[in-house]
């Protein structure tokens, strides 16, 4: 988005004179929405960011939490929506590259990636092309840099056919005493390391700060191209530099390129900087303004104390990492830019780095009323067996195997609970202890587009449950808000409500939001916003990985129990959408206090070995959750849904498919069932023992003695495991 005339006047005021071309380019890049958060800053203050675990909250390239004494987890999320719509392969790949570099800035070793993908109908030709490109882009890049993609979320809806949402997150680990938490010092040399600077991605952040052009070819030059090999040797070299304690500060060159990296580094530490653009190693012949704002990938900025220069050069040379020493930090608070000895820009770092926040008006749109439709008008029930089978083939429910098998999810030798086996992934720390970290990402575009406040709150709740179900204690989350055009009050309202929903829920659950990103201008060429979507990635601490629970039933004869009561909450459900083509109604209510209580109970049940499988009840409701436990184990079940604790439920389908929050399914061995009941009663939590795991190769839902649904396990397994593959590959 070009600078407004108001902004140009402000720049003149800051400089006290007419800006040079180079200065204008720097301001344009830095003041773009993507880099400056000017439309969101005021509201982002609502997010709770502190807890006893938080070492570094929002502000730096990535936040850090001290998950165990002396052990930091650094994690962050980022979107690459605009580039992925234009060039899905490179757009998604560079998203991975960028988020990994953010993690590296604190000296952390990247140990896991997550991808949260909201994409079109797999059978639509254009969407199909985008889906395959996005997944291949993440696969090729993540696999090559040796960071496993272990978890995420995938959602398919025709509203994303042309404009997918691609959010990626990275998790890193570093010992607290090795982490690069300091800042640059006066006279530190400024190193630009990694890829040569070229013409790709010129003003990419400005591109991401406006709606997509009708003709996407116009935007192709603004998409960066990734080079995973360079990123890999950059990671290896940085790990060695950090291990030897040779650098004071590391920063990613992301949106806004060199201009942004230098001005933020200086502004955040009350410093200035002198840089010489002619010293930058280039791929193309570029003008000074282009060198300043190019967003070529795989580049990082290092602050190196002068006495370490030789040692740093030696390591960079060893790994054949290209680099140039382009200037140094000063104490005058000004960024001075030279090209071939001539001063081309001189700006005060702070004013450049921090534009004034813009207050945007926000009004709810007419269509938000859809969320208020009362469910009394529910259509008559259809055949439940058919409905269940149809739900299992929904790409939002069926296994995401087609996606995660394209990712090397095991490299690093840490992935204890792998994709497809549990509600979250668990990685071991490999520090000689049994400790680990659980990670998971969630989103629900239907919820957040129907009711952005409660929808976003539910996304936090879902992530919290997923982390809990595997046996971890949720520690912190990061969020990404994918919203429409902030200049349009009806779009901005969704952003504001999602943010408020996340802030409220995370406060209630006592899980701080330690970082996040905002992606605006997700609207099509007609100005229609893409479904507003809040995504959340959380980390949990695992004290003993041998206690980690998958969702798979462990043995026939065990009892199946549900924790938490069920409400008639079919609004916004996958069931209404898939079976009736309806996307309306009140979405399930967030239940923060029950979430906390149930999570404590689940952790107790896992810690004391009372349960042998745990699964969160989410999209698709109880019926789908039970079937998932069956498919992952190859064991059938026999349940009586009249034993499900419920309130105000009038129909059987409400019991089966409601997406009521704060519920878990657990498996309890027969010898432990009495103990289980005692513990749950102590916690005063609603629960029901609803049936048994069976050796039979079938799943059976009954209502009292009446048989409701009976399906062969092989059929269910095939539909669940292979439907997405069939939709995508047409086989």
């Amino acid at each position: 988005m070009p600078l407004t005339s108001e902004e140009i006047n402000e720049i003149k005021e800051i400089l006290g004179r007419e800006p040079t071309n180079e200065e204008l380019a720097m301001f344009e890049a830095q003041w773009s929405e993507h880099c400056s958060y000017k439309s969101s800053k005021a509201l982002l203050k609502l997010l709770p960011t502190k807890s006893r675990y938080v070492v570094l909250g929002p502000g730096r390239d990535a936040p850090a939490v001290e998950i165990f004494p002396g052990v930091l987890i650094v994690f962050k999320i980022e979107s690459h929506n605009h580039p992925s719509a234009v060039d899905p392969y490179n757009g998604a790949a560079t998203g991975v590259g960028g988020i990994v570099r953010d993690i590296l800035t604190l000296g952390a070793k990247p140990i896991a990636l997550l991808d949260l993908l909201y994409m079109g109908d797999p059978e639509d030709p254009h969407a199909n092309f985008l889906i395959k490109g996005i997944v291949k882009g993440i696969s090729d890049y993540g696999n090559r840099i040796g960071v496993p993609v272990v978890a995420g979320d995938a959602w398919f809806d025709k509203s994303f056919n042309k404009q997918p949402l691609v959010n990626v997150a990275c998790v890193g680990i570093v010992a607290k005493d090795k982490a690069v938490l300091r800042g640059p010092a006066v006279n530190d040399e400024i190193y630009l390391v990694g890829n040569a600077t070229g013409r790709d991605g010129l003003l990419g952040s400005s591109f991401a700060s406006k709606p997509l052009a009708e003709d996407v070819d116009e935007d192709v030059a603004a998409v960066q191209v990734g080079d995973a090999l360079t990123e890999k040797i950059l990671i290896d070299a940085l790990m060695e530099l950090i291990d030897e304690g040779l650098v004071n500060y590391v920063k990613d060159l992301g949106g806004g390129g060199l201009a942004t990296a230098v001005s933020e580094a200086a502004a955040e530490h009350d410093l200035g900087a002198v840089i010489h653009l002619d010293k930058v190693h280039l791929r193309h012949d570029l003008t000074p303004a282009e060198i300043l704002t190019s967003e070529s990938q795989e580049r990082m900025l290092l602050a190196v104390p002068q006495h370490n220069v030789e040692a740093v050069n030696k390591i960079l040379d060893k790994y054949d990492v290209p680099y140039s020493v382009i200037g140094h930090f000063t104490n005058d608070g000004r960024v001075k830019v030279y090209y071939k000895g001539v001063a081309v820009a001189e700006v005060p770092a702070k004013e450049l780095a921090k534009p004034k926040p813009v207050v945007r008006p926000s009004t709810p749109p007419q269509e938000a009323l859809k969320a208020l439709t009362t469910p009394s008008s529910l259509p008559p029930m259809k055949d439940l067996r058919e409905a269940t089978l149809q739900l299992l083939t929904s790409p939002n429910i069926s296994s995401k195997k087609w996606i995660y098998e394209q990712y090397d999810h095991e490299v690093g030798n840490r992935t204890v609970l792998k994709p497809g086996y549990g509600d979250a992934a668990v990685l071991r720390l490999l520090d000689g202890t049994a400790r680990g970290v659980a990670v998971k990402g969630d989103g629900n575009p239907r919820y957040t587009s129907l009711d952005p406040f409660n929808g976003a709150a539910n996304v936090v709740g879902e992530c919290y449950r997923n982390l809990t179900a595997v046996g971890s204690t949720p520690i912190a989350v990061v969020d990404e808000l994918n919203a429409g055009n902030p200049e349009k009050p009806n779009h901005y309202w969704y952003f504001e409500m999602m943010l408020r929903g996340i802030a409220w829920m995370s406060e209630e659950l006592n899980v701080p939001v330690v970082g996040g990103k905002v992606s605006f201008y997700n609207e099509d060429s007609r100005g229609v916003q893409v479904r507003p979507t809040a995504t959340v990635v959380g980390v949990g601490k695992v004290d003993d990985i041998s206690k980690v629970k998958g969702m798979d039933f462990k043995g026939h004869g065990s009892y199946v129990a549900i924790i938490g009561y069920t409400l008639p909450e079919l609004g916004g459900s996958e069931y209404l959408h898939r079976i009736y083509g309806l996307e309306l109604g009140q979405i399930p209510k967030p239940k923060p206090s029950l979430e906390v209580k149930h999570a404590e109970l689940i952790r107790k049940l896992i810690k004391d070995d009372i349960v042998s499988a745990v699964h969160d009840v989410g999209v698709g409701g109880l019926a789908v959750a039970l079937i998932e436990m069956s498919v992952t184990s190859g064991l059938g079940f026999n349940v009586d849904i009249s034993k499900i604790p419920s309130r105000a439920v009038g129909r059987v389908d409400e019991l089966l498919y409601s997406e009521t929050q704060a519920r878990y399914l657990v498996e309890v061995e027969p010898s432990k069932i009495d103990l289980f009941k005692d513990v749950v009663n102590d916690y005063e939590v609603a629960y029901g023992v609803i049936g048994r795991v069976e050796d039979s190769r079938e799943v059976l839902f009954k209502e009292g003695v009446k048989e409701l649904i009976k399906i062969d396990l092989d059929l269910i397994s095939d539909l669940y495991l292979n439907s997405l593959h069939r939709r995508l590959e047409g086989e």
Partner: protein
Amino acid sequence: MGKVAIVKFPGTNCDWDVLHAVKTVSKLQSEVVWYKEFQPNGWDAIIIPGGFSYGDWLRAGAIAAKTTAAEKIAESVEKGTPVLGICNGFQILTEGGVLPGALAPNACGRFVCRWVKLRVHKPKGPWLALVNDGAELHMPVAHAEGRYVISEEGFKELVSTSSIIKYVSGWNPNGSAYDVAGVTNPEGTALGLMPHPERAAEDELTPRGFRAGGRVIFESIAHSLKKGW
């Protein structure tokens, strides 16, 4: 005691994982050696770990196979030093002509990461010393170019001279000819395989329905270096 070199090329990404397995399972001394600094003397065994050397440019393993380090590894094989190539390491060994055959893009056209079941035929040499003939081993694969290709005569020769690790029927993830997942040289000193034994060396990492089948390879090399083979 034995010392094991783990040779790292630009883009290698399983070096640390292999080091972990050699240290914890084989309990041998081991180091990751940057390819430029690799000298063959003083090592009792050499492992080329998986990854994407040179970003898989050209063909997987093709560029690394032309480096001085790869040539020195080939010479070590001639001298009888045990050499193991895992995944990209296997690709480098076939590209360099140390092992027969070639590894082409997977038949499905996609990268595949999943656990598979393997059967070892006529095990020989230091890496398979503790493996019984016909033993079933479980390990994960993770590759885009793992479809083993070999001529009919080449395969006949392989069958008569070397050990072959095959995917159990129904578990071939990439369309490999004759279900080949890994092969040795006629001496058995050099072993290359697409599956990752280092990821299957501990129960902790082994998912439901599988056993830690990579462990025996790391136990075998320790056993072999101790007693000679």
